[in-house]
């Protein structure tokens, strides 16, 4: 009895700090954003109100939908490119690298860049992709190009490359974990029953690793969806993403209500994606576990 009470107390004690944290730094700020999103822009700043004008404007003015679609496109491309690179890498690590030391080094090679500031890593791409950058010097010195090209930097491709580089660890880690969990006996059984290596991969390994793929896709998508540094550093005149628009509404336009409405739309999209990914992972588990 006394023990149970003490247990409850101590678990309350353990949980209370994260709960306070969540309440103060997640719930309250979002509640404030929510309230602001109904306020009204009125020179010089904005005034309390309850109206849906901000949400209406987001639908009526085509620029917001356009930037939103562009952001979804870029985040989608980043996730896809990350997947195409990360899956073979993780597969290679789990199945082909036999020595644990080498495995650890190769795994850390992916994870280690996370210890370096994001800004620094994104900035580095400027020096690689620029007109007088490393890539151009290489291509010119090897004779592949006759003169430096400007196509590598300040466009959406540069943004996709940079964001892929920055967020790819979040794809490698869950896929690696998922692949490593698959018991070797399953693939052996598949081979014993006459399946080819490719058939085994498509029908056993890939389905069983899907939870990792979905988790990785969700993380890279959501992280690049909210990014506003890459457009600023390596994006061109068509690089503005939704987070940049929110920043200008809070800054230049001093229209916090519209910025809040936009931020909430973004939050809803991200939450939808996370919910969907949760469902998908549930389906995967139900079917194959």
């Amino acid at each position, binding site marked *: 009895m006394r023990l149970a009470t003490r247990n409850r107390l101590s678990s309350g004690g353990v949980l209370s700090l994260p709960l306070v944290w969540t309440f103060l730094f997640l719930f309250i700020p979002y509640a404030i954003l929510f309230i602001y999103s109904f306020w009204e822009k009125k*020179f010089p700043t904005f005034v309390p109100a309850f109206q849906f004008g901000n949400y209406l404007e987001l639908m009526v003015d085509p620029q917001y939908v356009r930037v939103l679609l562009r952001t979804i496109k870029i985040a989608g491309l980043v996730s896809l490119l990350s997947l195409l690179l990360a899956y073979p890498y993780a597969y290679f690590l789990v199945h082909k690298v036999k020595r644990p030391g080498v495995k650890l080094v190769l795994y850390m090679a992916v994870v280690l860049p996370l210890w370096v500031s994001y800004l620094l890593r994104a900035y580095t791409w400027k020096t690689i992709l620029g007109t007088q950058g490393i890539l151009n010097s290489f291509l010119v010195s090897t004779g592949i190009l006759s003169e430096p090209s*400007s196509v590598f930097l300040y466009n959406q491709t540069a943004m996709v490359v940079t964001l892929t580089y920055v967020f790819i660890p979040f794809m490698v880690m869950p896929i690696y974990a998922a692949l490593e969990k698959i018991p070797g006996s399953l693939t052996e059984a598949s081979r014993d029953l006459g399946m080819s290596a490719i058939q085994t991969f498509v029908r056993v390994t890939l389905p069983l690793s899907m939870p990792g793929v979905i988790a990785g896709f969700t993380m890279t998508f959501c992280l690049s969806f909210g990014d506003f540094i890459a457009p600023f550093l390596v994006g061109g*005149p068509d690089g503005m993403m939704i987070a940049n628009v929110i920043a200008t509404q809070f800054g230049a*336009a*001093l*229209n916090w209500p519209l910025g809040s409405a936009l931020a909430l739309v973004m939050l809803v999209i991200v939450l939808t994606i996370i919910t969907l990914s949760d469902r998908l992972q549930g389906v995967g588990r139900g079917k194959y576990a």
Partner: protein
Amino acid sequence: MANRNSRLVTSLSVVSLLMTGTAPAFAEGELNILTWEGYADASAIEPFEKETGCKVNATYVGSNDDFAPKLAAGGGVFDLISPSIDSTAPLIEAGFVEPIDTSKIAEWDNIYEKFRNSGGINKDGEVYGVPYAWGAIAFMYLKDKFETPPTSIAELWNPDLEGKVSLWDDKSALYVAARLNGDTDIYNLTDEQLDAAKKKLAEQRPLIRKYWSTAGELVDLYAAGEVWISNTWAGYQSSLLADKGIEVVEFIPEENAEGWMDSFMIVKGTPNEDCAYKFLNMAVSESGQCAVANVNGYSVANPVAAKNCMTPEQFVALHQDDPDYLDSLLLWENLGERLGDYTNAWNAVKAE
């Protein structure tokens, strides 16, 4: 109105308190200044601190858009700010700044009359800012890339320069496009004129390498050979480039250039009023005026002080001898309720 605003400010400061957890403490004799890089240079600040005992902490802004949000997010941090003349009206209107007793500014009458009477710092018979520095939003190009020096804004729409053009990522881009369209009343554009400017900028976009946002970014773009022509804060980036051995030439185009002027304003409720006035006096004295002229390459608001502390060459180079030059610039104006429309128009160009 004032009441509602003060309530807004209070509630916002509560929010910011919750968000930051701690409130910065006021300290008597300590000035917190929100300003541009170079405006609190050691050459002026160190003697000032020694003489007055007022300690100066400077926080730098990257754009004029940073002043209002920082003040709206809760008072009590900054004592002085230095926004440009197009961003002052909302601060006055919202009650973020205090009227200034000009009788306490010894050199007030030496400041250009055009600035002292400017609508940007005057309201209902009260003065809200002490003019500090000014200049043009000039244009600039890489010297060795142009055989005939460009003289018109139209050069930034020249298809031959595809991928070599840059423009400031600011509503100022609309001012540039409007002037090219022949709409000279750039601060009072009608909806049609604003739309035409938008179209003009959309037309130019394929030629743009990158819209620049900070002074350092533009310098990097020129230094890395990415950009050959752009607009610029006259005097500033060109001298940074000159230090790197890159030769650029500034010019005022046929379509004219915008002018800007920064003034220091006192944040409402500052507990350091004494130090604030001492700082304002220093800022428009020889020490403050020549510091900004030397560090940033900007022209200054007090030509009398400038004459005493500048070499004759610098005095002429910064147009301090030439009131007509100042008059020819389209001095930035507050856009009032139209600010939102201008900002949205510029965002729409970038959203295309």
